[in-house]
């Protein structure tokens, strides 16, 4: 399920190495600007960006967009076992099994998905980068030790790892985020380290060293900023993975225990029981997850292509 997160070590390293090859400028046009120009012409990137922007917009303005209180069990008394009222006046998509407005819950659910995705990815990036920078900057034994540790983490498939961590921390949404974050750490650690190693030999790093600039300044002033583009690409892809993994953990019963709080994965898992009477309850949240995950994937993939010198034609 976390195929994207499971990029093989080699692939991560390749990606990192390529980023290292990126020259500072190219014919007077900065890398970022030329990348942006390519992105604007790429329909895949545009679709991805539109989805992502729309998703962010909905999450940000949920209280204004949602027609109703997502927690109010408005139509509960109309519900009978085996009967859930469908779309009707005031409830454009109908209600869930407790009479709550489905549209409003979907809209509010974007916030939860965004929060889980962003927090877990940011956590993963920070810890992974720290490990990667340490390994890349110090090299030698520190590097060997840290990378062995990362290899061990990589040897546990990410879902198993997430399950172990969720079981350890109990069922709550922080545990969920930490569990997902931990599965991201090894990817970013490898990425950063590879990228830094690739740049260590680069002309400007050698030049800076020759000029007697302190190592920490070279790392933080030059090497790190230049390593950021693969990290951004990977982070975008990781957001998609995180959203899907959150849904999977919710499905496994390891999600947020406050079921009233709308979350797509939990809504989807909960709706399985009503598939025979109201399949929409499952289909809408599933579509939301798929579309948003697809949006981040499209954007991430086209960013990768735009930033990759190999793809410049």
């Amino acid at each position: 399920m976390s195929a994207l997160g499971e990029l093989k070590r080699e692939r991560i390293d390749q990606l990192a190495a390529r980023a290292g090859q990126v020259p500072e400028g190219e014919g007077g046009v900065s890398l970022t600007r030329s990348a942006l120009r390519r992105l604007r012409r790429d329909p895949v990137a545009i679709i991805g960006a539109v989805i992502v922007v729309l998703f962010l917009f909905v999450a940000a303005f949920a209280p204004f967009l949602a027609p109703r209180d997502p927690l109010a069990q408005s139509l509960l008394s109309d519900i009978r076992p085996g009967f859930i009222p469908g779309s009707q006046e005031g409830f454009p998509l109908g209600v869930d099994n407790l009479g709550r407005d489905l549209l409003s819950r979907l809209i509010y659910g974007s916030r939860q998905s965004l929060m889980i995705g962003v927090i877990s990815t940011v956590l993963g990036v920070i810890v992974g980068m720290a490990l990667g920078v340490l390994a890349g900057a110090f090299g030698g034994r520190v590097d060997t030790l840290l990378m062995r540790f990362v290899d061990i983490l990589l040897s546990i498939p990410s879902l198993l790892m997430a399950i172990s961590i969720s079981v350890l921390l109990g069922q709550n949404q922080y545990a969920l985020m930490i569990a997902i974050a931990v599965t991201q750490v090894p990817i970013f650690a490898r990425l950063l380290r590879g990228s830094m190693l690739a740049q260590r030999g680069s002309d400007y790093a050698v030049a800076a060293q020759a000029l007697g600039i302190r190592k920490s300044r070279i790392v933080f002033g030059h090497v790190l900023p230049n390593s950021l583009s693969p990290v951004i690409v990977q982070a975008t892809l990781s957001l998609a993975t995180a959203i899907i993994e959150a849904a999977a953990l919710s499905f496994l019963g390891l999600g947020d225990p406050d079921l009233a709080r709308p979350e797509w994965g939990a809504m989807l898992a909960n709706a399985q029981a009503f598939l025979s009477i109201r399949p929409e309850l499952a289909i809408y949240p599933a579509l939301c997850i798929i579309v948003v995950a697809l949006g981040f994937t499209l954007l991430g993939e086209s960013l990768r292509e735009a930033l990759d010198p190999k793809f410049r034609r």
Partner: protein
Amino acid sequence: MLRFIVRRLLQLIPILLGLSILLFAWLRALPGGPAQAALGERATPEAIARYNELFGLDEPLIVQYLRFLGRAVRLDFGTSARTGRPVTTEFLERMPGTIELTIFAMIFAIGVGIPLGYLAARKHGSWLDSASVIGSLLGVAIPVFFLAYLLRLVFAVELGWLPGSGRQDVRIDATRITNFYVLDGLLTREWDAAWDAVLHLILPAIALGTIPLAIIVRITRASVLDVVNEDYVRTANAKGLATSTVRRRHIIRNALLPVSTTIGLQTGLLLSGAVLTESVFSFGGVGSALYDAIFARDFAVLQGFILMLAVVYVLVNLLVDISYGLLDPRVRVR
């Protein structure tokens, strides 16, 4: 070659040691520690003390870890709290099902993925190309358990074409030899049993194989595109070699290298990642047992299964590296 394999095997040791330390730490970190985990929260302090003494939990951590390691090496992971049976027995009994499922899923992913990826690259820019790119991205974006539910709902429940749960119809009185049901059916010449097992594998294999399929399509497409632009292909074309020869000798062969890495990686993942698929299809493999163990808080099973699965995963990756070494001599030299 032998030295390469030996070196890779030696590299496994620190990884497995590290894994065992992590899992040992995990069990120790569980709320209440191992005694509480085993005895439940009602356990009296005396019972916990007795348990700690019995299992040597009052000794220094390092001694305990070594003892844990000693048992782990002998594949002794204790007894399942849920079923009261040895964890290793359960694992070995269920692993064949998961292996079978993985093989079928990979057959599906490779059988569809490589031709599709190749065609997409050959017709670069066509609708088929765009469709396969978008389809492969979509394949990765669908939550596996939802896809599994959908497949079962449509093909097992609504259309009734294929069985939607289990490994074999319970009414078939099949002889079990290896616990690989398809193989058993073939060995005992119980053709209906073998065929029934195959039918039971189809839907779960498709659900499980979708992500590797998506990835294989992308990698195949990308590597064929890469290779087509390589000098040696241009040279071959310029030399006037027949197109089919160029395809066979140069494009396909070289493009398959990265694809084979991906296949290996994905196989390892599937072996351990079938938790969701197996539970949706009530498929009696390792994944569904893990799923049950999560709910029963069956720590012995969680610990033993996760460690053994990680070992399987690492070993499969090793096999992949070795076969990669066979395919590409450059790797050996490194």
